[in-house]
């Protein structure tokens, strides 16, 4: 009756996708423990999600440290970009998984009883709040980073305008020395690239980044900012130079104007497209929701198929059992008919024996008489 069905189970386990709950065992637990099984799966998924959230937060803290350093080195820049992409993708993945998990939890809740359902709901809420915190922190860090970059570009612009205005200051000589490496050798004199940058700055930056023709600079505001920036630079790089000198320390980030230009373009485009982005975003969301629904349907169908497959085994067993019963009963019917026949014919035998005895007696009497 109970054969070794390990190989069937292994085959089934391999054919199942990794994330789906395991099918009911061959001994057939009731529907309740199915729900408990799924609850266990839910717990494991939730644990996975919380681990990932922790990982994302760690990456986020690294990113925020890098951002807070201020003007960063190129490898830091690259690392920051990498981190940003990574964190973004993780956050999106986590979002999807959280939604999925909360849907599963809603479904399972009614089956597993009051307390387990509440516990699951609380866990979901906790996860969601941590996730929301992480997402908002990410946003803050990104904001800080864009602010930093803006400061940098303002600063550079100021530097080169200042450079433009004062000709007899010894510092511009240093600047002309330093300018080529900063621009990455793309231009022989730095000004054309600078012009591009300034013209691309969004109209919202009207502090110091209004596009200015060459040779004209509001030296007053320039000097203000000049006096401010070196202090900042002094703080972050500890170089003690005169008024503009610290600007040209080698800690000047080689953020080429090409980069700045690209960033400004992106920002500008984003601001232009933001009105449309809502609509497009909505469409994208709707499509992705439809897609996830369809995928869910697919998994449900798969589960259904698996369940029905199991049932096939059970039905076969039922069939075998009933077949055995049938055979047994047939055989016992034979035996009983034999018994019956033998019961009937026993009297015949006795009768025969008796008649033989009577014949013997008659023969004996005849023999003696």
């Amino acid at each position: 009756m109970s054969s070794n069905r390990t190989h069937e189970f292994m085959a089934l386990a391999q054919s199942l996708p990794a994330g789906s709950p395991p099918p009911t065992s061959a001994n057939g637990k009731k529907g309740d423990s199915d729900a408990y099984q799924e609850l266990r799966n839910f717990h494991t998924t939730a644990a996975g999600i919380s681990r990932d959230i922790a990982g994302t937060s760690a990456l986020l803290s690294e990113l925020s440290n890098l951002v807070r350093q201020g003007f960063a080195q190129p490898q830091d820049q690259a690392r920051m970009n990498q981190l940003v992409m990574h964190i973004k993708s993780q956050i999106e993945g986590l979002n999807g998984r959280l939604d999925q998990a909360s849907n599963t939890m809603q479904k399972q809740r009614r089956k597993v009883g009051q307390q387990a359902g509440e516990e699951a709901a609380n866990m979901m809420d906790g996860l969601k709040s941590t996730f929301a915190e992480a997402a908002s922190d990410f946003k803050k860090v990104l904001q800080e980073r864009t602010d930093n970059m803006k400061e940098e570009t303002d600063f550079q612009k100021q530097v080169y305008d200042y450079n433009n205005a004062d000709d007899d200051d010894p510092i511009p000589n240093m600047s002309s020395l330093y300018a080529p490496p900063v621009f990455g050798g793309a231009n022989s004199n730095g000004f054309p690239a600078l012009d591009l940058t300034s013209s691309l700055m969004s109209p919202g930056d009207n502090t110091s980044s209004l596009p200015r023709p060459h040779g004209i600079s509001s030296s007053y505001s320039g000097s203000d900012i000049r006096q401010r920036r070196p202090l900042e630079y002094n703080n972050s790089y500890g170089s003690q130079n005169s008024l503009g000198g610290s600007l040209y320390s080698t800690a000047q980030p080689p953020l080429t104007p090409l980069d700045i230009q690209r960033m400004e373009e992106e920002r500008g485009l984003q601001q232009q497209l933001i009105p449309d982005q809502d609509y497009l975003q909505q469409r994208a969301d709707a499509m992705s929701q439809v897609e996830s629904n369809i995928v869910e349907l697919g998994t449900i169908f798969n589960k259904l198929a698996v369940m029905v497959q199991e049932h096939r085994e059970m039905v076969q067993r039922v069939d075998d059992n009933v077949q055995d019963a049938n055979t047994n009963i047939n055989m016992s019917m034979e035996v009983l008919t034999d018994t019956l026949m033998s019961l009937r014919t026993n009297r015949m035998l006795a009768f025969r024996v008796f008649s033989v005895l009577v014949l013997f007696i008659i023969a004996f009497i005849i023999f003696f008489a």
Partner: protein
Amino acid sequence: MKIVGLAIVRTGSDLNEPVPLTVATELSSFGFFQRQSVKEMLMFLTKTFMKRTEPGQRQSVEHEGYVVHCYVRSDGLGGTVTTDGEYPARVAFVMLGQLLDEFAQKQGDSWKTVTTPESVSFPPADEYLQKYQNPAEADKITKIQKDLDETTQILHKTIDSVLERGVKLDNLVEKSNDLSAQSKLFYKSAKKTNSCCVVS
């Protein structure tokens, strides 16, 4: 979830105010005497927002509980849909897109020179307004979503019944096990009765 008004508007740099070409409204939810003022406000909102919308841009602006979705095509033809807060913006923009395409197709280029407001008659505008009152029917994505939800529900019920079936099959297995055991015992006792003792 309802649409209150719909307007096709022509914008352009030669006009200081956008010119509404066709207007359709569904004001049955307002009292009879309010309708006129509501309609005027709709037109005013339409013109204001169309003036501020760049070509190739979509915007949704909320005003006193109603949302105005505006869309201007790159050639200067634009439309606005005024809906209540619940109506999904995406459906409104899809409707605008379709409406404007049909309008441009039917009217050809004639709308580009119109300057009198509400002078173009375009009956499909009313049809669109009525059809899109229920976004679930008119917008394909919403319909698909609804169908999918239904299907998912049905499948959940199916899975429940399959689980029940499993339980019942399990019962059957047990019972048939018992049956076969009992029949075996029966056979054995029958054989015993037959073979050893002789019934006298």
